[in-house]
């Protein structure tokens, strides 16, 4: 998933109505008309929300005859979780580096200082398109 796609997911789930739609779809597939009647908003407004969810690839629409049936595609949310998790890893690695930096300084101005500051970082493996930055 690219950055733009992640942005789309985060924007999509920022809205309470869209979260409610996703929550409803967790229980099972639903027709657009069912969703419109389940929420205190117009069919037109519901359609707009659904389009946002479709663009974020959180919802899949299948046309069955006259019905438009929506189903949840939860994979994209996993990216949002990964995005949060990357921040945890980012700060854990930074605190390790802080420790190495400070302890290297305590040891005096020896040749260890530079290696100590970068040593713990070298073992980290990064996701292919980078972690939280």
């Amino acid at each position, binding site marked *: 998933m690219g*950055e733009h796609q992640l*942005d789309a*997911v*985060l*924007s*999509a*789930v*920022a809205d*309470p109505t869209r*979260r409610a739609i996703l*929550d409803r779809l*967790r229980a099972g597939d639903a027709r657009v008309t069912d969703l419109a009647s389940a929420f205190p908003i117009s069919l037109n407004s519901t359609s707009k929300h659904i389009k946002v969810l479709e663009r974020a690839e959180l919802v899949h629409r299948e046309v069955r005859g006259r019905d438009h049936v929506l189903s949840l595609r*939860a*994979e994209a*949310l*996993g990216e*949002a*979780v*990964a*995005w*949060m*998790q990357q*921040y*945890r890893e980012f*700060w*854990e*690695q*930074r*605190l*390790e*580096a*802080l*420790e*190495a*930096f*400070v*302890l290297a300084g*305590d040891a005096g101005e020896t040749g260890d200082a530079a290696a100590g*500051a*970068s040593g713990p*970082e*070298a073992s*980290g493996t*990064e996701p292919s*398109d*980078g972690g*939280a*930055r």
Partner: protein
Amino acid sequence: MTAAVTVSRRIAASAERLFDAWLDPAAIAQWMRRDDSGRPSVVVSDPRVGGTYSITMIDRFGENVHVGAYRVIDRPRELEFTWRSEHTVGIDSVVRVTFEPDGDGTVVEVHHTRLPDAAAAAVHEAGWTELLGRLERTMNGMEAA
């Protein structure tokens, strides 16, 4: 999982020493950087309340610019600043760092809050936590495979 990310680490150094390493541009350049380039970050910092900073981390994908402003500078106990990058979807998140003396060392705790409202809202929603947790496990499983 919660909307905020909290990590902590006990480090065998004084709170003053650690606190200063968060504000001194030369120190930040050394430890606040991406893992894989070995190159120090480029840091510009005006460490006073209301002052701003920028940290440009360099990795194999290019440069990542982080900017923010200092909100609390209470040496050597607490530091708080805003944190914005393209990865925070262009909005300010808030990083609060506390320094708690612990024997001959200090527990440094980082609370990263107000991560983009969207992600925060998603994980706040009751019922979503379970789903997100399951997705996370699934994802981790795939990564491990």
